[in-house]
């Protein structure tokens, strides 16, 4: 499935939506497909900071746990407790219901280096080989 056009993407399969000064982070459809049934999610609380290139949370499927990486610096202003309560939301609605955290951006220009949807789809397809 083609990734939504209005988002930016990372090589570690996170998506970012810019909403004013705030960035919303999530996991891509490719990521949730690859992980399989997701059973557990760990996210930072509001007030915690995240750093570009550093893990900000853990997502686990029946098979294995993986870190999720923040593409940006900033402070978490809200996390999605619904997704923590029902991690299968990530399988069902990776771009809508299963947003993960909202981050107040330290430097909005950090989004410039991220991939567009078409670049990401090409990247994901290459990776799948």
């Amino acid at each position, binding site marked *: 499935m083609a990734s939504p056009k209005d988002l930016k993407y990372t090589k570690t399969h996170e998506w970012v939506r810019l909403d004013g000064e705030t960035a919303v982070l999530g996991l891509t459809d490719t990521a949730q497909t690859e992980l*399989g*049934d997701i*059973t*557990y999610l*760990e996210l930072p609380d509001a007030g915690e900071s995240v750093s570009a290139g550093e893990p900000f949370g*853990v997502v*686990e*499927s*029946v*098979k*294995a*746990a993986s870190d999720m990486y923040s593409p940006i610096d900033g402070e978490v202003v809200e996390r999605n407790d619904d997704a923590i309560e029902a991690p299968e939301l990530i399988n069902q609605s990776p771009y809508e219901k299963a947003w993960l955290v909202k981050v107040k951006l330290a430097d909005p220009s950090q989004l410039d280096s991220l991939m567009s949807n078409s670049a990401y789809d090409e990247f994901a397809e290459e990776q799948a080989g």
Partner: protein
Amino acid sequence: MSQETSTDRKTALHQRHVDLGARMVSFAGWNMPIQYTGILAEHRAVRTAAGLFDLGHMGQVSVTGPDALTFLQWTTTNDVSKLEAGEAQYALLPNESGGVVDDIIVYRQPEGEDGYMVVVNASNRERDVAWWQELRGRRSKLDVEVRDISHKLGMIAIQGPVAETITSRLTAFDPLSLDYFTWKRVKVAGVTTMIARTGYTGEDGFEFYADDAEIATIWDALLWEGGRDGLVPVGLGARDTLRLEARMPLYGQELGDDISPYEAGVGWAVKLDAKEFIGRDKMAEVKAAKPARRTVGFTTVGRSAAPRTHYPLFVDGKEIGQVTSGAWSPTLEKNIGLALIDREYAGVGKPLQVEVRGKLVDAVQVKTPFYKRDNG
């Protein structure tokens, strides 16, 4: 498990898995389905309806000749002399130091046929056969032949509460007339097959052994017949969570070269007093002195990532062992695990901590199996 490699072998059902949209992985030198639609759905189908498994990667070894019983008595831990024609038993293939080379099922051939068939793990097949051949060489006077017959045989399993209903529609034979751990030669879907009432899921069900060229006929018929009853194909992913809930050991995790059967909790398959066998004295020593470690079941307290194989366990900050298998249990909807720990800390209700991804998570020891079917 890893990505597909070109040297991997394919079972007779490989193209069917691909056509069903399975995700294929490399496992023990075979290209096998890890999941079709998803591990959770497949797991739950086996607990509530039925699942169909391709076990073409498993190994089968034929042991025949006048001294087959003598040889198997010497090279396995269970009492093979107890097997009547058509009966099967779980056993271990021992090494000389009191550990385990593999866990196996020994089938005595049905009435009127001589010898035994031993089913072994795919990952151990080659070294099992090599070990048996070496032992065969040490007892050259024995009239026995050990042959790897894996390449000729296909193997599938149907497991779950409606496995019997589905199977009975494809054969004149009454599957329920088969006792647990027995097998028989019958026709299913027009194909001659051995049908065994055995499995690795904690559910009732059957395993089929048929010629590699014919196993697909049974697979297709079962899948076609069983669709309306909720039968789905099940990959290795759910096979692992199913066997863990039922507390069935997996070689390389609960069992190994340097783990005593008494530590692994399979001492019941070791018959020290029945016979002489490889490694017997070492096993007897461990039993007499009481094993230093025990395999225990545990669940974690509160929510956390799942414990996984090799994660360390602590009591009061002291490392006391390691997780052998762990997962989020689809049936219990919580994290479960088996662990090999120092004996003094073992006991149902006793606390532990497991280090999961750098964090200490509280856990408590529980009775196993984690799951037991109602009529089981």
